[in-house]
């Protein structure tokens, strides 16, 4: 140990002020490059928690908690030699003594990195205070917005730029009527041109967000209908309950000013190409730095600076910072927006191609240079699938095709793509981590033939994730180019795709995993990839009870215990409520069970009731009572039919034209218990007003005067997709026949864990092909698919009822097989009248380490 002390004394001290995204990346890079051999590292953060992902801040309102937004592993800051001081703002820098001063004391430094970021600019407006002067930058700001929103109806964001629209989305997520007030005559004036701004405005207004352009707030006074009134010129006003300012950012350069570092005319610590400030021992990176008079408010350039400084401090050659490409691609309020390079066409001699579609409010502009050979910039509103290709054209100066306009025109094949083979070695694939096609190729040459491994080796696609599609294409293309056949095996135990295994199971009538493994696989155990996949195939084909002894070990934990495991190891229970229709007695029965077992209760999006917090040993008792009250399992835990949502339809609604509830019941009763490559959601609407949101489901049915319209392959969730109209004015029998065929064809041909939406997009021949197979029976499969479905329907049995009959199957539902006690480590706290799991923060899991200087 003595030798350790000796080494410690030789170490210099490096201080990083700021633990935002860029500061954190710098620490990561420093550690990775071996900085701890030369330095003791201190990181000071004003905020009480370690670095978190500000890019996805708005997800804090849609359910993500602070811990899941945290960047990287907490253990990084427990590395010996690294000290993270949280909630410890640096008050002063003493450059003469080379010390930073905090409320806790002084720490001397040899080198200092400023990564203090920026703060939101709030224009001085009379009357702006409290809930009329909120900002949107930190988790604390978001907590303040949430508190203000709790008894508000309407919220206004001042500023129609990128962050302003993010903030408007956050207000919408909180259930407020959201408005955006922008001083400029268009939205996102930096990134978009006039038509782009118009298209974005139209799309956002369709989503119910008010947009008010060319309006400057002159004062804020008390409102009449709402809490505040914002007064504009010409006696115009807008009333609201809260106001969020997002009118731009300013570099957080207070410390730099205090210690007299050179600061740019528009703020920001002046840095050179090495990110060095006017003091050679002090560097500045990210949004607090001004390079060539500019501040870079995006993550990628900040990361680039962080990498450069980390390299320099580790005595490696650092690539000089030479400015950054501010191209950006985002989804704002669900609308695709992209801006590349010279979006405004301000380069002398440049010419533009424009495509405007007023029906969908889509807009695309391509800016090319005077020679017409190279892309200078582009604007995209409504569809970002064009972005990757256009960006590659610009970044790598790839020669344009003969008809440049084809790059932005709609085509039946979707957006044009640049083959991965056409990209030069220097082409950037991942701009967050600056990974080029060349470095991907050399990783492959170094023996990396696994996409996951490639990501961890090169870091490609581990930032914003936007390059996932391109990375996969490049990877597969390069493998094929090297004569490596792309391995589509399910896993190391089966050299077959899911589709091939499905065919083997069907044709050979295989009914157990062991049989399939013995005949067509390797080894005698399988793994957590092939077991659930085969379990699902067996269930789709033969529909045997999943609790049968040979099937139990195949299921993922949720299927094994027929409940949904939550983060603390407890389960949630969802009884089936077909079509969302339920009697008072059944509602009471659910209430009685929830009360008896103290379960947290929440209404789901699929018109059911989810009961949370059950321990393993409680599940059989809970289900015995639910089954006694007439419920069946809801399969919320399975890759299987989930719900059929419905509106009340013609029975009650004055607009309804068909009995949507009855149809929902028919559909749910038919397909309940059907297992498939992924979960299946259905909905039936009783008229074209579409209150059941059928167009966001795998199978959507909408009533017409003459029958039913069938929509397929829609999706909500992370990657929303509108369902496509498949057939119109169907009678009941034809509707069911088409759904039978559609679902069984999907089950037969989809990849594992592939939703219908992705499957449909990957089908060669697209929707027309699918119509041919299902409606015209072009493959002659129709009857076979129907009879396969009928077998599954005939064999339906409530899995919970089946399991409760068999003591052998109930053996596993014990928290401890040798002890009656519940898991002593499960803790709950009360919130809003119910219990919920205790959170990591409440258990003080986020370590705060401090050193007394």
């Amino acid at each position, binding site marked *: 140990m003595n030798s350790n002390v000796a080494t410690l004394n030789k170490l210099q001290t490096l201080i990083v002020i700021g633990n935002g995204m860029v500061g954190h990346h710098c620490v990561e890079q420093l550690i990775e490059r071996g900085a701890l051999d030369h330095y003791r590292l201190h990181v000071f953060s004003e905020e009480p928690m370690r670095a978190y992902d500000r890019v996805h801040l708005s997800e804090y309102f849609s359910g993500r908690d602070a811990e899941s937004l945290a960047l990287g592993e907490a253990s990084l800051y427990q590395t010996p030699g690294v000290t993270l001081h949280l909630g410890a703002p640096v008050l002063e820098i003493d450059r003469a003594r080379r010390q930073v001063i905090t409320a806790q004391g002084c720490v001397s430094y040899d080198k200092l990195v400023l990564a203090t970021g920026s703060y939101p600019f709030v224009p001085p407006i009379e009357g702006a205070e409290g809930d009329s002067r909120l900002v949107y930058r930190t988790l604390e700001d978001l907590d303040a917005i949430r508190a203000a929103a709790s008894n508000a109806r309407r919220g206004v964001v001042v500023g129609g730029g990128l962050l302003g629209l993010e903030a408007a989305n956050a207000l919408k997520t909180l259930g407020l009527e959201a408005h955006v007030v922008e001083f400029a005559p268009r939205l996102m004036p930096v990134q978009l041109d006039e038509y782009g701004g118009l298209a974005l405005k139209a799309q956002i207004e369709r989503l119910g967000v008010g947009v008010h352009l060319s309006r400057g707030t002159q004062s804020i006074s008390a409102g009449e209908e709402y809490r505040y009134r914002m007064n504009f010129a010409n006696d115009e006003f807008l009333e609201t309950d809260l106001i969020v300012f997002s009118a731009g950012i300013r570099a957080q350069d207070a410390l730099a000013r205090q210690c007299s570092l050179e600061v740019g005319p528009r703020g920001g610590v002046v840095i050179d190409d090495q990110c060095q400030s006017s003091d050679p021992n002090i560097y500045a990176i990210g949004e607090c730095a001004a390079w060539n008079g500019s501040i870079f408010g995006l993550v990628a350039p900040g990361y680039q600076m962080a990498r450069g400084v980390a390299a320099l401090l580790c005595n490696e050659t650092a690539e000089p910072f030479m400015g950054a490409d501010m191209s950006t691609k985002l989804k704002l309020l669900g609308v695709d927006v992209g801006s590349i390079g010279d979006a405004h066409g301000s380069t002398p001699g440049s010419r533009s191609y424009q495509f405007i579609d007023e029906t969908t409010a889509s807009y695309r502009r391509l800016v090319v240079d005077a020679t017409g050979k190279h892309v200078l910039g582009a604007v995209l509103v409504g569809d970002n699938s064009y972005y990757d290709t256009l960006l590659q054209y610009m970044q790598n100066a790839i020669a344009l095709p003969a008809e440049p306009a084809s790059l932005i025109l709609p085509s039946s094949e979707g957006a044009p793509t640049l083959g991965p083979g056409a990209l030069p070695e220097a082409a950037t694939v991942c701009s967050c981590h600056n990974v080029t096609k060349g470095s991907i190729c050399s990783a492959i040459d170094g023996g990396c033939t696994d996409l996951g491994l490639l990501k961890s080796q090169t870091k490609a696609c581990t930032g914003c994730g936007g390059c996932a599609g391109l990375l996969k294409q490049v990877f597969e293309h390069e493998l094929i180019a090297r004569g490596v056949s792309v391995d589509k095996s399910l896993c190391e135990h089966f050299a077959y795709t899911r589709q091939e295994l499905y065919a083997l199971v069907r044709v050979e009538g295989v009914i157990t995993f062991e049989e399939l493994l013995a005949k067509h696989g390797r080894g*005698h155990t*399988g*793994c957590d990839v092939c077991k659930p996949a085969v379990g699902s195939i067996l269930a789709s084909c033969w529909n045997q009870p999943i609790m049968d002894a040979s099937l*139990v070990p195949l299921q993922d934990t949720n299927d094994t215990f027929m409940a949904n*495991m939550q*983060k603390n*190891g407890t389960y949630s229970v969802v009884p089936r409520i077909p079509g969302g229709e339920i009697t008072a007695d059944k509602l009471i029965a659910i209430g009685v069970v929830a009360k008896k077992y103290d379960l947290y209760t929440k209404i789901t999006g699929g018109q059911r009731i989810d009961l949370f917090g059950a321990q393993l040993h409680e599940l059989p008792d809970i289900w015995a009572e639910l089954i006694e009250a007439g419920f069946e399992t809801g399969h919320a835990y399975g890759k299987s039919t989930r719900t059929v949502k419905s509106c009340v339809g013609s029975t009650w609604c004055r607009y309804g034209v068909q009995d949507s509830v009855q149809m929902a019941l028919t559909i749910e009763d038919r397909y309940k218990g059907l297992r498939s490559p992924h979960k299946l959601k259905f909905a039936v609407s009783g008229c074209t007003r579409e209150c059941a949101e059928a167009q966001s489901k795998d199978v959507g049915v909408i009533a017409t005067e003459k029958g039913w319209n069938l929509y397929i392959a829609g999706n909500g969730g992370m990657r929303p997709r509108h369902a496509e109209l498949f057939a119109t004015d169907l009678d009941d029998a034809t509707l069911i026949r088409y759904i039978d065929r559609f679902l069984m064809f999907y089950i037969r041909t989809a990849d594992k864990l592939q939703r219908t939406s992705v499957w449909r997009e990957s089908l060669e021949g697209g929707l027309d092909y699918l119509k041919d197979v299902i409606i015209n029976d072009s493959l002659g499969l129709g009857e076979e698919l129907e009879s396969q479905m009928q077998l599954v329907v005939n064999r339906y049995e409530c899995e919970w009822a089946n399991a409760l009959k068999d003591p052998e199957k109930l053996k596993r539902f014990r928290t*401890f097989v040798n002890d009656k006690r519940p898991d002593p480590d499960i803790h709950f706290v009360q919130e809003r009248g119910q219990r919920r799991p205790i959170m990591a923060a409440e258990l003080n899991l986020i370590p705060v380490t401090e050193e007394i200087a």
Partner: protein
Amino acid sequence: MSQSNTQRIDSLENPEAWQTVCEQQDLVSNSGVVVWLDGAQVALFYLPGAGGRTLYAIDNHDPQSGANVIGRGLVGSIKGDLVVASPIYKQHFRLEDGSCLEYPQQRLRVWPVRLNSGVVEVGVA
């Protein structure tokens, strides 16, 4: 540092005492159950057909999620090692020595374990 603390433990070693934890019939083939062992939670995996050792005892506590769930994970083999996947974040632990395939800093305790005429015994130090 971490090397010296690591020791290979398997059923062949002789622990100081064998403690009976449950009956053989409490086990579920090719799957896991959990026993309470004086304050510790031990997951028992019973793999009668896997061709090697048939019984493994490993800590039930998942260090990544903080929940006691390892006994409810799916067992499988990866590149020759028998592993259990945590049911929450799906990282894999070797049944043999408790080491984690994805995160070397996560490591689960393992116990010697044996079947002795119809009962399961765990070795305690």
